[in-house]
């Protein structure tokens, strides 16, 4: 069977499984639409949470960022796992005890204010939509490769699938489907990693292979990679930083806080039977996430090594050292079709020179070889994981599997996020604020319309994504970090935090972060409206826009505390409510009222 047919078969089969499960477990009541019922075991829920969590950003984009940023990409690895520690210890058990469906519902009740609830809904929608834009980028890349079309067509196809898939399900369907998706995505991620690690180092476990010696015993895999990249003028892999040390610190913190503030993850902890289970669910979720996250560094490093060695086949500076364009491998041609990989023969020698022409010292040396600039004019980072098995010459079924895994990751997260958006509009805005008398049926209908609207909007922005999938997703984390997390945490740990403090805290936190992102990335990410330019020189203490959420969160905490000191403390019954959520005893099941 040729690759194309095989890919269709594998992807088609996995989709049939998801849709089958979604149909079998489809939601009939609002309760089932929002939370999956009480019967979900912590291990199963942890697995579903992991699938929900690991999106196109983790599956498709992250290893690519690691491949090109080396040590600097550690911010994603630590940031997207360390947040679970905060979630497990600072939020999950208490929110479970509180026992409601949605994050704005908690904020509205804890801060005895409809306004607070509405502000929370707005923050939640901003963060979630930005997140879905990142997913759309990933979905677009996966579909364009899968259907062998350009990126835009791939994106439209992806939007259609996401629509059919998430509008039908609801949480109950999503939980069971996500377990299936986790199995597929983790299998698809680790199998090629094991193969590649075996090829390069002879060690099957990628986590160990990354630290092992090359098969020929000459040197360790990481030392070899450091040598290969520095030989072509790139920065040393194992030490290159992202921006500055301060930027890496703040970036990591932003992703951690954002993890604990994203509604679609928090929602999952409403669905566990007991407070005790909320704690262990976070642990299990992180176990399942860690399997992928500790494999990713090996995938990134090995993909980079394979890519460099595919193009630079021999000694640097010798004519035959560079691959001839005519002899380029099939994967190279496939990715050229998508427009995500571009080659330009600058010196007209018919060979490919891939090096760092921004490094002046090396560029001078390259000039003496007759090289006229880097000829790989576009290597989209987001293609690395999908191209990786082809670059490593793995069998076709592995390649097909990776495409299916990437789609599973993107779909499971998009569905979870769309559900969070739908519930905040139908449950919090309509039922909670504007139309308290709405029937269950109409509430469900409104939720489905909200999902469709969100897909259309995210798809539109996905045509011109502000960054790589993982970068876009990082902005979403910044928004969640600056708004939702501080309000939740203070709601639990600071009994005296009051309505005015929380509202002004959220508003100032998210405003500061959004302004900073927009001034560097364009208003609503529209190219050309970025009045300060997306460049390091204009960054506040060298902190990149993607990393700014932690600063926003600090603003949120500060404003909230100052305002709460100047205004009346919360009423007695709210202080009792806070005391009550601090102990597990007496938790009922989650209710909508």
């Amino acid at each position, binding site marked *: 069977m040729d690759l194309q047919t095989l890919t269709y078969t594998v992807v088609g089969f996995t989709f049939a499984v998801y849709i089958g499960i979604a149909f079998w477990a489809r939601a009939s009541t609002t309760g089932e639409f929002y939370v999956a019922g009480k019967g979900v075991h912590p291990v199963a829920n942890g697995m579903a949470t992991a699938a929900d969590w690991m999106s196109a950003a983790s599956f498709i984009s992250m290893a690519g960022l690691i491949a090109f940023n080396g040590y600097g990409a550690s911010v994603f690895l630590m940031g997207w796992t360390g947040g679970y520690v905060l979630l497990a210890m600072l939020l999950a058990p208490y929110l479970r005890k509180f026992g409601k469906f949605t994050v704005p519902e908690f904020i509205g009740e804890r801060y005895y204010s409809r306004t607070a609830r509405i502000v929370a809904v707005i923050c939640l929608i901003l963060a979630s939509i930005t997140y879905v834009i990142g997913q759309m980028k990933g979905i677009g890349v996966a579909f364009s490769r899968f259907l062998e079309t350009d990126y835009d067509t791939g994106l439209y196809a992806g939007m259609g699938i996401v629509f059919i898939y998430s509008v039908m399900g609801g949480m109950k369907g999503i939980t069971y489907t996500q377990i299936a998706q986790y199995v597929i995505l983790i299998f698809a991620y680790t199998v090629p990693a094991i193969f590649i690690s075996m090829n390069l180092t002879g060690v099957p476990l990628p986590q160990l292979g990354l630290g092992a010696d090359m098969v020929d015993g000459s040197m360790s895999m990481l030392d070899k990679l450091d040598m290969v990249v520095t030989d072509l003028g790139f920065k040393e892999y194992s*030490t290159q930083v992202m921006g500055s040390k301060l930027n890496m610190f703040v970036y990591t913190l932003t992703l951690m806080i954002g993890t604990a503030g994203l509604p679609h993850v928090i929602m999952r902890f409403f669905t566990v039977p007991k407070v005790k289970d909320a704690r262990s669910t976070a642990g299990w979720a992180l*176990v399942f996430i860690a399997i992928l996250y500790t494999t990713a560094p090996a995938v990134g490093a090995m993909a980079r090594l394979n890519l460099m060695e595919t193009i630079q086949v021999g000694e640097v500076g010798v004519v035959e050292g560079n691959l001839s364009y005519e002899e380029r491998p099939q994967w190279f041609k496939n990715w050229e079709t998508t427009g995500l990989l571009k080659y330009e023969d600058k010196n007209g020698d018919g060979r490919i020179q891939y090096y760092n022409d921004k490094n002046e010292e090396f560029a001078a040396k390259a000039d003496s070889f007759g090289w006229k600039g880097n000829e790989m004019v576009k290597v989209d980072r987001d293609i690395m994981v999908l191209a990786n098995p082809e670059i490593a010459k793995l069998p076709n079924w592995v390649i097909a599997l990776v495409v299916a895994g990437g789609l599973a990751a993107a779909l499971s997260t998009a569905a979870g996020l769309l559900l969070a958006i739908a519930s905040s509009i139908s449950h919090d805005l309509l039922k909670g604020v504007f139309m308290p008398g709405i029937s269950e049926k109409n509430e469900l209908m409104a939720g489905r319309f909200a999902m469709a609207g969100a897909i259309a909007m995210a798809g539109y922005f996905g045509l011109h994504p502000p960054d790589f999938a993982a970068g876009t997703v990082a902005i979403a984390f910044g928004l969640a970090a600056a708004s939702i997390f501080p309000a939740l945490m203070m709601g639990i740990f600071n009994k005296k935090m009051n309505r005015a403090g929380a509202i002004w805290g959220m508003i100032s936190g998210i405003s500061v972060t959004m302004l900073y992102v927009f001034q560097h990335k364009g208003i609503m990410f529209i190219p050309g409206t970025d009045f300060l330019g997306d460049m390091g020189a204009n960054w506040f203490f060298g902190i990149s826009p993607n990393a700014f959420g932690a600063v926003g969160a600090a603003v949120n905490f500060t404003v909230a505390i100052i305002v709460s000191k100047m205004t009346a403390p919360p009423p007695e019954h709210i202080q009792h409510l806070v005391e009550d959520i601090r102990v597990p005893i007496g938790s009922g099941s989650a209710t909508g009222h």
Partner: protein
Amino acid sequence: MSDREAYWKANISLVGGCLVVWFIVSFGFGIMLVEPLNNISLGGYKLGFWFAQQGSIYTFVFLIFFYAWRMNKLDKKFNVHED
């Protein structure tokens, strides 16, 4: 001090302790102290690099289960566990 207050205090100090470890392995070893640690090697890994891309993640997993185990014991000790 009432039992509830004592329980909450014990909870805060457990969480505080866990978060100190959380901070040291990631922000400490993985970012601030990465250069000195990189002089030590762990197999083919530089140690600082290993903490940033592997070690911190393993520690996070351990921390959550440790916290869950200790909290469950606290719940029982102060008799605030669910049935």
